[in-house]
């Protein structure tokens, strides 16, 4: 069975997963429910709705993955489950 430490680590991992997927859902779906309205605003000289689909959401995904990975690595270290110093399997 999972030790209490493993259990706590998994709870924290799950929480991070839910936060990450909520941000992902926002940039992949919610934004495009309102793209027609967003197009009235502008960003860098582009219409905002067009910008989000051409660049904005993709940049958000890249940043989101790196951010979420850093958080997860911090969690792993905190609970002593990190494998960063591992050499071989």
């Amino acid at each position, binding site marked *: 069975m999972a030790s209490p430490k493993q259990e706590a680590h998994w709870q924290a991992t799950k929480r991070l997963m839910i936060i990450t997927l909520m941000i992902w859902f926002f940039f992949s779906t919610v934004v495009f429910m309102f793209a027609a309205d967003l197009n009235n605003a502008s960003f860098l000289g582009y219409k905002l709705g067009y910008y989000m689909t051409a660049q904005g959401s993709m940049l958000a995904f890249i940043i989101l993955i790196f951010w979420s990975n850093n958080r997860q690595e911090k969690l792993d270290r905190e609970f002593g489950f990190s494998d*960063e110093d591992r050499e071989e399997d």
Partner: protein
Amino acid sequence: MAKTSKQFIASLPKIYGIYTGGFLAFIVLMAFLEKAGISGRNIGLMFVGFTILIYALIGWLSRTTEVDEYYLAGKKVPTVFNGMATAADWMSGASFVAMAGGIYFGGYTYMAFLIGWTGGYVLVSTLLAPYLRKFGCYTVPDFIGARYGGNFARFCAVLILLVASFTYVTAQITATGSIAQKALSTPEFPVSFAFGCYTGLITILICSMLGGMRSVTWSQVAQYIVLIIAYLIPLFWISWKYNFGIFPHVMLGDEVQRLAALEQQFGLVRHTKEVLTEAKIPNDALGNATSLKYIVGGHSAVPAGHEVAWRYISLAICMMVGTASLPHILMRYFTTPTVTAARRSVGWSLFFIGLLYLSAPMLATVSKISLMDPNLPTAIIGKKISDVMQIQWVQNWIAVKQVVIVDFNKDGILQLSEWFMNEDVVVLATPEIAGLPYVISGLVAAGGLAAAMSTADGLILAMANAISHDVYYKMIDPKASVQKRLVVARVLLVVLGFLAAWITTKGLTGILGAVAWAFDFAMSGLFFPLVLGVWWKRATRSGAIAGMLCGLIAGTAYLVWVGVPNKDITFFMGATPWKDIHWIFVDNLRFGIPGALVSLIAMVSVSLVTKPESKAVMDMVDEVRIASGKTVIRNA
């Protein structure tokens, strides 16, 4: 051995640095040769020949006789390089050649593919990649087989893998074949499309046969470097040449606005089915132009309304969830040294993919404005048709029927809606349109070939590995020697490759449909069994089998029911009444939605009525959820 491989890893940046420098020097050399009067055709031939030779050389140098090397590249591919290899694996001939063209004609609605083909990596990174790496599996069905137990579950996973990958691979061989055909043909010796396909296939096999995953990994990195250089140079060059801005991605705002104004000025017209048919422009049951397109929608305008939003979002969701279920992508993350490295490498993959995908809308913008803005010397819209017909590149593409001009209103002036062009031509012809030297066109051909080959490599390897490891070794002959297993793996690679090429050259690809189908098949059958295998302990073997089979069957049944409007295939029941029967705008590109829903419901309900898995399985799942420690299954 361990020492030399460590030295090899440490010297990778140097090796690929020299390679990149060498490739750039080769481009400069070709530019000089062009100045010296070598013909464009020979330059194209040299580009394609030289790069293919390099990939084959890498494949040969990476040959191996070890199972761990063959299936997992020895589990020592560094994070950043695995990111590049995944990016090449991911970006197919379609991404390279057709995406900017799709955006050029489709505008906002087409860009759902951009979101769909990038957002999925968030799912890969958070839900799957690190856990599958911890498992230590050789293939994706290997995970299903070990987590749920039993040969039948493993077999179902192999089945879905084959359906999804095969749908995908023929499109790649088609792209490889048509580029190879263009590069190898001369007026004296025209070569056939089939010859192009088989030439491409043989190079693909040389890249993968001798060293399996190891060869594929290192040649994919090389292919990524070629394809990204080939994509970015024309974009930056044109942007500088016409003073659109030094850095196009942040500086094309004015041009996008200008396009909206020009669209107003020229007027966006939508032809009826009758008009298109009379002008002999191929079109589907709904009156959409199919192979040759014209601009119907605005470049940056977002059509209002719930239907447009839903169509956009539903397509993006299918592509995203499909991304997270495609075996040839997931298996790339089995090759990293650690679990943390697998996770980080997903981030790098998306970064390298983003370099191209962020550029595609910009390339579409510069290409469109080159044709439309009357202030630019390259403009053709609004000019006299007789003058336009004199332009060299227009003549070239008209000769191969990729461009058609129809003077609907008989005024002798080329209107926006009178210019028909194949989507693929946008990327291939943009350097010529903007008047760049031919050396850039040769470079673009080499890039397109690299993109198609790298994806085909990954797909054929994924299929051959699944059959050789999961079916042959795990089910048929578990006592097979290492040597025998590797022979079987290689024979399968060749057989599958030739089967795919044969189907491609026989023109049977019509029945395999769109690239998007591969994503829908994968998400229908594999997404929930994979994700719940890690995230839900209560998931049982019977549940997973029900999820895979019901998902695949429901998705396929929906596809047959809804039909394909632009393909004349009689066994699709919905081919004619398509408009009336599809369910909330879920058409043939989106059949993964009903498929995955059925899969989820079947998997959860069957899992709940069957007995929970044993304590050993629970412990295994606990072990998978932490990064530290040894891999869960020990293949050798």
